[in-house]
């Protein structure tokens, strides 16, 4: 029996076409997976393109980065910086692990959990030509003598962790900024007695829970400042999480009696709206001038002020920036980019621009406090934003007391994340203070043991 030739002619041709198309699709997919590390050479061959990865949670920082990069790109003849923003709400650790796993490190990185990455050899060194532009105490070397991160803002520690308040309300009700912790509690009582919500705070993203906690815990942390820091001592058994019982009790009491309802699901940025809408008289913040800037954008007429919750003796205990250790943050050059001469040179060029007087003035204009550069005297601070004068006045406050608490073990970030969630659990009434202390102590012991291995 013979088959009709007409029936077989179409099939091999169709099969060939499908095979070619499938092959092209596979090749396209394979090529799409390839990308240059950190950046590429410009198509024209003259400029090197580098990527700058940064966190986008702070609107002021977003504006600053954008304007700096635009200005730099306009003037640089050798380098183009491409912004690589992390989507809002992204988990930083996950994002950095992903770039590491895919071998796709940007040249410049806005770092967190620095020690972990230094130990893993993922960061390049910052050369003297950059560090010489900074004040000597604005940076520090790691154990191997190299500098891996440089600051992206002024080292005013956690001065930005404060309480923003409605000055007009205070004036109308004859209230004043508290000078002691007891004054602060009285202030909360007075506002509540007026029928208003004294304080808004946020815990939806977990990290803002530090805003109310840290000023309350600061007196305990400050005691260990000269001994190596509370967390290091607690990990080594020279201190105990039990010592945080008193501030935890204060935290619980303030949360239960004075904080605006719904704090568990309130996002950090929403506290600005709550303040401006007069749904709360005060709000916690960790954004310093940036929060004042946000408030001004939302309501230019809002008369904001800020203060830090003092201790019972009137001292304002503020954590000093860690310039080395796991809690240190800053700008870094990735090891991947450092291995490429052009990428490294371009990264250094951008950092040198970042620490110039021109860049500092651009930052200040946008409401960002510029890093402590050697030529700080030439920088014009922006105190036009309502409340900014209160911020700069804090720097000169005789009651300001800087303390250190820089954990030196690489697994501290795990302990910190766990402790934040455990505190929220306690504030929410799911667990007792003693249970929170016990589980945090257990977690600290486990993580310290893991770091020692």
């Amino acid at each position, binding site marked *: 029996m013979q088959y009709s030739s007409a029936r077989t002619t179409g099939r091999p041709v169709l099969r060939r076409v499908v*095979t070619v198309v499938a092959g092209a699709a596979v090749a396209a997919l394979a090529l799409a997976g390839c990308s240059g590390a950190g950046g590429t050479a410009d198509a024209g061959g003259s400029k090197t393109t580098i990527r700058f990865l940064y966190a986008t949670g702070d609107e002021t920082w977003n504006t600053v980065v954008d304007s700096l990069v635009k200005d730099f790109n306009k003037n640089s003849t050798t380098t183009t910086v491409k912004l690589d923003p992390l989507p809002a709400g992204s988990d930083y650790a*996950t994002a950095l692990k992903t770039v590491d796993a895919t071998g796709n490190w940007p040249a410049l990185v806005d770092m967190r959990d620095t020690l972990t990455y230094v130990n*893993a050899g993922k960061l390049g060194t910052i050369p003297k030509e950059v560090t010489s532009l900074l004040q000597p105490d604005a940076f520090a070397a790691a154990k191997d003598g190299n500098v891996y991160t440089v600051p992206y803002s002024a080292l005013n520690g956690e001065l930005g962790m404060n309480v923003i308040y409605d000055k007009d309300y205070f004036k109308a009700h004859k209230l004043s900024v508290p000078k002691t912790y007891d004054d602060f509690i009285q202030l909360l009582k007075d506002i509540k007695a007026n029928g208003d919500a004294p304080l808004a705070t946020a815990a*939806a993203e*977990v990290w803002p829970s530090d805003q109310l906690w840290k000023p309350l815990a600061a007196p305990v942390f400050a005691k260990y400042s000269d001994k190596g820091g509370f967390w290091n001592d607690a990990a080594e058994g020279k201190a105990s999480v039990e010592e945080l019982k008193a501030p935890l009790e204060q935290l619980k009491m303030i949360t239960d009696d004075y904080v605006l309802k719904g704090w568990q699901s*309130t996002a950090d940025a929403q506290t600005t*709206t709550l303040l401006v809408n007069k749904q709360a008289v005060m709000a916690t913040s960790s954004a310093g001038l940036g929060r004042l800037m946000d408030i001004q954008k939302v309501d230019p007429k809002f008369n904001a002020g800020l203060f830090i919750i003092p201790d019972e003796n009137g001292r304002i205990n503020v954590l000093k920036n860690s310039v080395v250790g796991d809690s240190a943050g800053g700008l870094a050059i990735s090891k991947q980019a450092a291995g490429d001469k052009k990428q490294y040179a371009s990264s250094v060029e951008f950092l040198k621009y970042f620490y110039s007087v021109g860049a500092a003035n651009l930052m200040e204009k946008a409401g960002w406090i510029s890093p402590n550069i050697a030529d700080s005297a030439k920088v014009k601070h922006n105190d036009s934003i309502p409340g900014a004068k209160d911020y700069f006045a804090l720097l000169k406050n005789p009651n300001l007391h800087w303390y250190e608490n820089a954990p030196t073990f690489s697994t501290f970030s795990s302990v910190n*994340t766990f402790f934040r969630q455990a505190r929220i659990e306690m504030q929410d009434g799911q667990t007792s203070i003693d249970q929170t202390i016990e589980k945090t102590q257990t977690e600290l012991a486990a993580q310290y043991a893991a770091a020692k*291995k």
Partner: protein
Amino acid sequence: MTDVIDRDAAAARTVEVASAAPPRRRPRFGRGRLATLAFVVPALGVYLLMVILPSLQSLQLSLTNWDGISGAYDYIGLKNYQEILGSGRFWNAVKNTLILGLGSAVIINVVSLVVALMLDRLTHLQGLFRTLVYLPSLVSAFIMATIWKYVLNYNFGIANTALRDLGLPTWVRDWLGDSSIVVWVILFIICFTLGGNTTLIYLANLQSVPQELVEAARIDGAGGAKVFWNVTWPMIAGAVTVNMTLAMIAGWVIFDQVLVLTSGGPGFVSETMAFFIYKVGFGEYRAGFGSAAAVVLFIVVIASTVLANAYLRKREIQA
């Protein structure tokens, strides 16, 4: 006589053919098979590289203290598993996963079956209603959860604003911040958005139930409910197996909604197993520990799926 000779000749020819050279074998790798392999092998290769090998590596990493970043790690045996099984946080995540996984599987299937039964009865605009039912499934879980997050916001969300405006301030709740209800709120959101596929599978099976059986039951005097329980329900047993299995597997790995709506909070109260793995494995630089939790989740999913399937398959009837 001629017929007999013809028949004998035909039989002889048949015998000749039968005892002739053995039939030509098809070549093992004929062009057809090669073409099939050419299409299957790349996909299989990608599947092996992207799914199987990483899963095996996860098993290996679960026995280490790798932080996910460093080049080196140590083998620590079963310590990660011991820590997981002794962790109250882990068992809370298991409990939440059971509630969300099994709860959503049952609710989605019940609701989808009811909707499918209603769609099956429609004589007009069935296509339009089918599309409307399916539309929520087209929106990603992440986007849907983000929308719900704004809707349920305590201070600014439309849900509470509407309740206050309607004069029901006592009904106002912190839907995503109240630890006593947050898991049930997440369950509601999951059930609300999933179900399109499930409905269509049920609808297709309903439309393949032999109408003669239904008519015979009606002739015998069976009412609507009896027809459903005794004729329709056994006939769609296969669809129930498929839908329950798929819904359970989806439920065990619920992640997007938890990440967007609550980040596992307040505290740890709404963490699920998948979220727990992500949090510790990625967010806390404990990749070895996270891998061990992933292996435990895998075992749980396999075991529950096999058991559920074994039970559901007993009910199936081949039409």
